[in-house]
C-alpha cells in the first residue's frame, strides 16, 4: 500500500510554535483581574482536623477569598470510586491533602495568607504499608468503607494444583517496585475563569483529560456538564499524570473564581507538584512458576499487591491491566493470579505511562531469566519455547486470532540488531577487573487502548473553510506525544491535501463530544479512526457535489474521484496513474459553499466488542495487542555499584507507523523513562512523608545517562487500526527495567529483585535509607 501523507516522517505541526517560544502553556496565560490561588496542605499524613481559623488570612491585604472544605458543595470526586477530597474536611489521609485555598491579588499575598491560616491537627497513627493494610485487624484508612481493600482481581485458568504437579522445576520469587514520579517538565497549572461566554466557569491549563476534569468540576460544583467548559492548552508533558491532580486543582480554582467572581490562576511549584500529585503504584509481587525440565511452562501462580495510597483513584483499572499482562506473553496452561490494591496513608497512586504493566513485567521477565538459570537454558531459547503465536490462548482465555501475533519476529529482530547471541556468549565468559558487562532482554504483549476498563470511543470534527483550509478538532488531547501531527496526517491522507492547510484546534469540551481520556496508547488507534471517519464523511459529501457539478461533463461517478495534491482528479485512460484534474480543493470549497453544501462532519469511532468476567478473569479483554522486545547491554562497576547502560535495542510492532520519526521519538523517550525506573528513580517516603520533592532529590535521567538506543520499528498492519496502526507510547517503557536487571545479573551473578537498581542494591545487595534499611 502506498501513502502520500501517512507512514511518512512529516514534521510536527506544533514544532514551530514550540521552538520560537510562542506556544502558550498554562502558566503563560493571563486574564484581566486575575487572582492567584494557593493551597495550604496538611502538616501530617494522617490527622484529624480539629479547627481551622482563616480570620487572619482573610484580613491580609490583597486576599480576596479563603475557602475550606465547608465551602465545597460536593467534596468527593473520582473517576472510578468517588472518595477523593477536594479539600480535607475532618481528616487528612496523605501528606498532599489540601486543607484550605486562598485567592489573592499577588502570589506573595496568597503565600503569606497561607502562613496566617491556623489549623489545629490531632495527629493520628497511619498505615504506610499495604501488608499492614490487608491485615484483618488493621485500622481502616476510610472509616466508612468495610476494609482497606480497593480491589481484588482474581484470574483462574486450568487447574493450578495439577499444573504444579506436572512441573519438574518450581521457582518462587518475590519482587518489589517503588513509587515513581511522572516528572513532566511543566508543573501543573489551572486557570478558572468565571462566567465567560455563558459557561459558569471555563477551565484552562495543563489538562491531560479535559472531560475527566469537566466531569470532576461539574460534580464538585453540583452543576450540569454544559456549564463547565474545559479548554486545553499546550501541555508540558503528562505521561498519565495530569488527570485527578488537575481535576482537584480545577475544582479548587473554580470555587475560588466563583467566590470572587474573578479569574483565578493556580500554578504548582515543583515541590508542590511532587508532594501532591499521584505516583506510579509500588507493587509487591509473589511469583511461583512451574516448568518441565525441557523448559515448557506449565503453571504460574501470582499474588500482586499494589499500594493505592490514600485514594482509589485509578487503582482498580491499573491493577486490572496487571492481571492481563502478569503472566507475560507466554502460553501457560494453568494460571492463578490474584491482584489487589489497598488503601494506605501514603501518597495516592494512579495512571502513569505503562499503567500497571511495568511492575509485573519487571517481576515476570526477571523470573523468566531466573528460571532459565535454574534450567541451565539460554534465556532467549526459554522465551522462544513459550511465547505466543497466532491462535495461542492467553491467561485470560483469549484466542489470539484476529491480528498478526508477531512476537517471534519482534524478538528475532531485536536479537539481530543487538547482536545478542554473540554478546551473551562473550559476557558469559569470566571477565577481569571490577567492571563487568552483561546483556539481558525482556518481552511483552500489551493490550491496546482501554480494553474492558471503560467505553472506548472517540470523536473528531473536520470543518472545511470556504477557501479549502481546514479546522480539525479531536476529543483526544495533545500531550506532547505528537497527536496533532498524526491526526493531521490522517486527515490530509484522506482528503489529499497538504498538512499546512490543516489547523488543529485544542480540545474544547463545549464543541467536541466526550472522547474519553488520552490514555492507554489509544489515540492513534481510536482517535485516528475517528478522524479518518470524519474525513471520509466530508470526502463523500465533496465527491457527491463534484459529481453533481461535473459528472455529466466529464463522465464519472463520485466513487471514481481521486483526492491528492490539493486537487481532485478522475482516473483517465487505461494505465494506472493516468489522471485528469477536475478541480482544485480550494476552488471546490468555494463552489460548495456558494452552493450551500455543508463541508463539515463529525467522525466517531467505537472500538470492537470486548468481554471480561470479573469473577474468573476470563474473556477477551482487548481487541488487539502490540508486541515488544527490548535488549539492554550494561556495564556494572562492582566496586561502586554504578551501572552504565551502554545500549538499548527496542523492537516494537506498531501495526503501522503513521509517522516513523515520531515513533522513534516515542521509543527513545520511553526507553529513557524505563532506564530511570530501572536504576535511579524513587520517590522516598517515610511514614507517609516524602523526602525528595524536587529534581535535586528525585533524579531522572540526564542526557549523559543516555545509552546508545537502537529503535527497531516492526510493521504488521492491524485489521482495525487506521492504516493498520496500533500503539507505541506505553510499550516503550514497560520493558527496560527487567531487561536491565537481567543484564546486571549476567554481569554480576547477582539477582536484584527490587527497583531501582541503585548504588546500594548493586554493591551491597540491599537499599539504605535514613529511616533504616529497607
Amino acid at each position, binding site marked *: 500500500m502506498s501513502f502520500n501523507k501517512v507512514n511518512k516522517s512529516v514534521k510536527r505541526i506544533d514544532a514551530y510554535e514550540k521552538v520560537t517560544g510562542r506556544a502558550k502553556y498554562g502558566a503563560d496565560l493571563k486574564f484581566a483581574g486575575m487572582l492567584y490561588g494557593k493551597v495550604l496542605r496538611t502538616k501530617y499524613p494522617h490527622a484529624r482536623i480539629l479547627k481551622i481559623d482563616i480570620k487572619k488570612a482573610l484580613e491580609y491585604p490583597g486576599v480576596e477569598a479563603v475557602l475550606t472544605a465547608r465551602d465545597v458543595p460536593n467534596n468527593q470526586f473520582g473517576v472510578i470510586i468517588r472518595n477523593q477530597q477536594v479539600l480535607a474536611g475532618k481528616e487528612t489521609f496523605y501528606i498532599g491533602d489540601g486543607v484550605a485555598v486562598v485567592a489573592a491579588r499577588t502570589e506573595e499575598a496568597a503565600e503569606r495568607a497561607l502562613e496566617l491560616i491556623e489549623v489545629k491537627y490531632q495527629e493520628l497513627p497511619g498505615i504506610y504499608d499495604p501488608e499492614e493494610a490487608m491485615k484483618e485487624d488493621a485500622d481502616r484508612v476510610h472509616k466508612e468503607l468495610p476494609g482497606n481493600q480497593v480491589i481484588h482481581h482474581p484470574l483462574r485458568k486450568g487447574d493450578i494444583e495439577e499444573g504444579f504437579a506436572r512441573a519438574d522445576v518450581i521457582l518462587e520469587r518475590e519482587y518489589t517496585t517503588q513509587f515513581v514520579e511522572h516528572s513532566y517538565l*511543566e508543573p501543573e497549572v489551572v486557570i478558572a475563569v468565571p462566567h465567560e461566554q455563558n459557561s459558569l466557569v471555563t477551565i484552562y491549563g495543563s489538562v491531560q483529560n479535559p472531560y475527566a476534569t469537566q466531569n470532576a468540576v461539574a460534580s464538585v460544583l453540583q452543576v450540569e456538564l454544559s456549564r463547565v467548559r474545559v479548554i486545553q492548552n499546550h501541555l508540558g*508533558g503528562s505521561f498519565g499524570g495530569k488527570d485527578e491532580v488537575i481535576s482537584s486543582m480545577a475544582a479548587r480554582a473554580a470555587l475560588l473564581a466563583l467566590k470572587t467572581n474573578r479569574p483565578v490562576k493556580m500554578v504548582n511549584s515543583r515541590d508542590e507538584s511532587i508532594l501532591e500529585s499521584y505516583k506510579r503504584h509500588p507493587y509487591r509481587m509473589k511469583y511461583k512458576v512451574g516448568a518441565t525440565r525441557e523448559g515448557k511452562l506449565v503453571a504460574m501462580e501470582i499474588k500482586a499487591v499494589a499500594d493505592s495510597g490514600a485514594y482509589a483513584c485509578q487503582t482498580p483499572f491499573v491493577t486490572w491491566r496487571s492481571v492481563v499482562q502478569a503472566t507475560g506473553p507466554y502460553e501457560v496452561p494453568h494460571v492463578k493470579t490474584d491482584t489487589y490494591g489497598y488503601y494506605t496513608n501514603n501518597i495516592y497512586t494512579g495512571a502513569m505511562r505503562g499503567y500497571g504493566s511495568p511492575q509485573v513485567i519487571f517481576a515476570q521477565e526477571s523470573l523468566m531469566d531466573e528460571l532459565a538459570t535454574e534450567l541451565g537454558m539460554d534465556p532467549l531459547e526459554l522465551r522462544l519455547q513459550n511465547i505466543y503465536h497466532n491462535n495461542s490462548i492467553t491467561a485470560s482465555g483469549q484466542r489470539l486470532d484476529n491480528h498478526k501475533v508477531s512476537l517471534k519476529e519482534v524478538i528475532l529482530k531485536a536479537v539481530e540488531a543487538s547482536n545478542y547471541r554473540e554478546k551473551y556468549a562473550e559476557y558469559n565468559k569470566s571477565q577481569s577487573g571490577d567492571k563487568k558487562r552483561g546483556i539481558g532482554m525482556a518481552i511483552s504483549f500489551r493490550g491496546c487502548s482501554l480494553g474492558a476498563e471503560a467505553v472506548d470511543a472517540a470523536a473528531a470534527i473536520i470543518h472545511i473553510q470556504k477557501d479549502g483550509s481546514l479546522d480539525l478538532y479531536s476529543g483526544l488531547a495533545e500531550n506532547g506525544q505528537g497527536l496533532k501531527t498524526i491526526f493531521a496526517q490522517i486527515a490530509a491522507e484522506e482528503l489529499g491535501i497538504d498538512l499546512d492547510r490543516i489547523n488543529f484546534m485544542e480540545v474544547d469540551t463545549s464543541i467536541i463530544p466526550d472522547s474519553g481520556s488520552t490514555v492507554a496508547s489509544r489515540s492513534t488507534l481510536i482517535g485516528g479512526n475517528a478522524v479518518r471517519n470524519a474525513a471520509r464523511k466530508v470526502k463523500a459529501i465533496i465527491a457527491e457535489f463534484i459529481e453533481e457539478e461535473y459528472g455529466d461533463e466529464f463522465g464519472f461517478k463520485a466513487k471514481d474521484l481521486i483526492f491528492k495534491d490539493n486537487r481532485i482528479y478522475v482516473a483517465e485512460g487505461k494505465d494506472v496513474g493516468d489522471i485528469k484534474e477536475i478541480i482544485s480543493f480550494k476552488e471546490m470549497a468555494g463552489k460548495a459553499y456558494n452552493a450551500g453544501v455543508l463541508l463539515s462532519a463529525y467522525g466517531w469511532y467505537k472500538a470492537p466488542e470486548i468481554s471480561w468476567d470479573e469473577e474468573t478473569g476470563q474473556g477477551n479483554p482487548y481487541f488487539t495487542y502490540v508486541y515488544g522486545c527490548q535488549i539492554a547491554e550494561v556495564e556494572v562497576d562492582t566496586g561502586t555499584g554504578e551501572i552504565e547502560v551502554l545500549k538499548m535495542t527496542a523492537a516494537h510492532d506498531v501495526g503501522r507507523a503513521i509517522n516513523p520519526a515520531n515513533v*522513534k521519538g516515542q521509543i527513545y523517550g520511553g526507553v529513557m523513562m524505563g532506564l530511570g525506573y530501572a536504576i535511579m528513580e524513587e520517590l522516598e517516603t517515610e511514614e507517609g512523608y516524602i523526602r525528595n520533592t524536587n529534581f535535586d532529590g528525585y533524579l531522572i535521567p540526564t542526557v549523559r545517562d543516555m545509552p546508545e538506543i537502537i529503535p527497531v520499528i516492526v510493521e504488521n498492519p492491524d485489521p482495525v487500526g487506521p492504516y493498520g496502526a496500533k500503539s507505541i507510547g506505553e510499550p516503550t517503557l514497560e520493558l527496560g527495567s527487567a531487561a536491565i536487571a537481567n543484564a546486571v545479573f549476567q554481569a554480576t551473578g547477582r539477582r536484584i529483585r527490587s527497583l531501582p537498581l541503585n548504588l546500594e542494591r548493586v554493591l551491597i545487595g540491599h537499599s539504605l535509607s535514613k529511616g533504616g534499611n529497607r
Partner: protein
Amino acid sequence: MKKIKVNLTVNGKEFTLEVGPKERLLDTLRERLKLTGVKEGCGIGECGACTVILNGEAVNSCLVLTGQLDGSEVITVEGLEVEGRLDPLQQAFIDHHAVQCGFCTPGMLMSARALLDKNPHPNREEIKRAIEGNLCRCTGYQQIIEAIESVAGKGEEEGADYFEWDPD
C-alpha cells in the same frame, strides 16, 4: 522595600528596571517583559527549562537575581529569531523531531546556542555536556542531539578557541 535600579539589555533591547530584592531574572523576563518562552520547571537550577544566555553564557535564570545584573546582556528563546528567520538550531529542532511537549525546548535551545557560539563544531560529548543540565522527559534526548549535531556540522567558520580563559 528598597528597589534596585538595573539597566539590562534583553534580546537587543535596552531596559531600565526598578526591581525588588527577590526578583529573579526568570520573573523579570516572564512577568515584566512578557517573554514567556522562558519556562520554570523546578526553581532550583536542576531542570534547565529557564535557561537563558547571560553575557554569553548559559545560566539558569531562576538562580540569578535581576538586582545582580546591572549592565548585563540577556538573550532568550524569543531573541533567537532574527527578522522572521529562524535560528538554524530552531529549524534543526523542527526538522529532526527534537520537540515533543516542548516545555524543555526553549532552555535546550539556549544551552545549545551558547555552546555553538563558543564552539561551532562541538563533538557529541561536548554537546552532551552542554545540555546535561537540561532535563527532557519526552524525547530521550536522541533527536535533540541529532538536531544540534546537524547544525554543529555545518558552516565554515573556525571554531572559537575557548580553552583559555582570558581574565581581561
